[in-house]
């Protein structure tokens, strides 16, 4: 039977089955990717996971994976948000109820939901997204990097209504006393549960003072906007930095030794130098260079930890050990001054 021409063996059936299965799996992946493309949150989360995974394989590969996270624009308004978002795409318009209390509550809920969405989308504070190769080796100091997840414009008609709503706005309380939809935890508990210290931060006083669009002389601006900002700073311990440097040195040495001709040449060059300058001078030179490198690395690592402690301590309180860094979701007025205080630079897309 088996020997007959045109017969199909069980091996061929299995191979064909594997081929079809592989095709279906790959096709499924692309279908998922396409659906992610149409949903910006999924696409952002997918790119966050891709970057974190790339970082696990090689920290250098991390920066090559862009974060496909776009700033969501939300307009909470009595009329519209032309003042803030004119000419911008994909603006989500939410009409505010006439009742001041209901309008305030809707602003608080939308803001709390956006803070939670941002935290969830960016990996719940568990993923290291922004640290670089140079930082992991102590060549460069760690700095906080941010993604602006949302811009929320609040446009209220009438000074009295604006002041009544904005002065009583209390996002902090809303997050404390309301559960995240579909969960048993409130917003603050949910966000603080991340392994890589993650906290929501807001300043209701600042938020209450955001300006309203001038009713006359229509101009454009950002004075009535809030930003939900995810920031992260991550530092390495001295042990991690020196271990990373050690493994780099080992890989380089192995590479030199295994490359035909180079290993032998390197040893010869070393011998010539030692013969020319003497063992003592060569040893002292190596020790001096080594000490200088170690000093610079130690200084950068120490500075990074100090900076992270100060940066994170501002938000988490002095009792927390923030030397290793933190992830923070913040609600701040959308302006240069506030964004610059938080972020060395921005990632993601406007």
């Amino acid at each position, binding site marked *: 039977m088996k020997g007959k021409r045109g017969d199909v063996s069980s091996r061929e059936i299995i191979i064909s089955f594997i081929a079809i299965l592989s095709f279906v799996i790959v096709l499924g992946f692309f279908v998922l990717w396409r659906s992610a493309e149409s949903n910006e949150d999924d696409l952002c989360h997918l790119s966050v996971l891709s970057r974190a995974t790339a970082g696990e394989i090689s920290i250098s590969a991390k920066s090559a994976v862009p974060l496909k996270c776009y700033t969501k624009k939300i307009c909470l308004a009595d009329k519209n948000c032309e003042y803030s978002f004119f000419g911008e795409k994909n603006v989500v318009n939410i009409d505010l109820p006439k009742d001041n209390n209901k309008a305030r509550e809707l602003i608080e809920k939308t803001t709390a939901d956006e803070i939670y969405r941002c935290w969830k989308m960016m990996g719940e504070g568990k993923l290291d997204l922004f640290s670089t190769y140079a930082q992991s080796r102590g060549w460069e100091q760690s700095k906080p990097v941010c993604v602006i997840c949302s811009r929320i414009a609040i446009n209220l008609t009438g000074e009295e209504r604006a002041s009544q709503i904005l002065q009583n706005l209390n996002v902090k309380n809303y997050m404390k006393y309301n559960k995240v939809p579909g969960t048993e935890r409130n917003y603050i508990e949910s966000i603080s549960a991340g392994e890589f210290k993650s906290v929501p931060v807001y300043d209701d006083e600042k938020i209450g003072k955001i300006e309203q669009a001038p009713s006359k002389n*229509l101009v454009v601006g950002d004075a009535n906007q809030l930003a939900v900002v995810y920031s992260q700073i991550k530092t390495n311990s001295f042990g991690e930095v020196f271990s990373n440097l050690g493994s780099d040195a080992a890989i380089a040495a192995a590479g030199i030794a295994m490359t035909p001709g180079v290993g032998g040449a390197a040893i010869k060059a070393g011998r010539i130098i030692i013969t020319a300058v003497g063992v003592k001078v060569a040893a002292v030179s190596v020790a001096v260079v080594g000490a200088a490198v170690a000093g610079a690395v130690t200084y950068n690592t120490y500075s990074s930890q100090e900076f992270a402690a100060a940066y994170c301590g501002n938000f988490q309180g002095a009792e927390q050990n923030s030397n290793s860094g933190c992830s923070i979701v913040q609600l701040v007025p959308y302006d240069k001054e506030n964004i610059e205080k938080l972020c060395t630079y921005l990632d993601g897309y406007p």
Partner: protein
Amino acid sequence: MDILKMRFNKKGDLREQVPEIVLVVLILVLLAFGVYKLYEIYSSSERDAAKNILESLVAKINLVKGEDVKGKVLEIPLQGFKGAENWFIVGFSKDASKKPQKCYFGSCLCICPLNDNDFDVGHRTEKGIFHGLADSAIESCQESGFCKYVEFSNVLIIGDTLIKGDSPIKGSPILYSDTAIQLSNSLEYVNISFPNQNTLDIYMFREVVY
């Protein structure tokens, strides 16, 4: 040799290999497609972001130009992104002798990927050192940039950078003026003003401390 011949000359050997070859080719094609799709998705982000910034800027300019804004300076925020520093806002007046073909019929604002070679060598002015656009900048705008027409005969764009500290030229702070505004990966503002009905003036000031 005999052993090799025996292995490869057996009847039906090639037929047995066909499904495996098909499988390998199929997987390679899918992988190539996947890599291409990933590249396409990721590489388009930076260009899309730059294009959106231009569109939003021009929309805002068109919105305010009908209002009574003479003498006022409008601050428009530009939210940066990763890779933004490769992109520059440039403008071409209606009567400019050199401009991209895209702007043939009038004045326009463009956002283009430029580098140091796209600016001329520069000359000293009372304020500092002034750099104009080189011909290659116009080519870059034509080939890789995005442009939109604006209804002003004159478009003036200046990006000033004041360098303090250990500037390349030692001594007092030095001001570099470019006829282009470089985007950055932070939140910054451009100042827009309309000195007269036919003129659009876009200005950005940056201070860099070394």
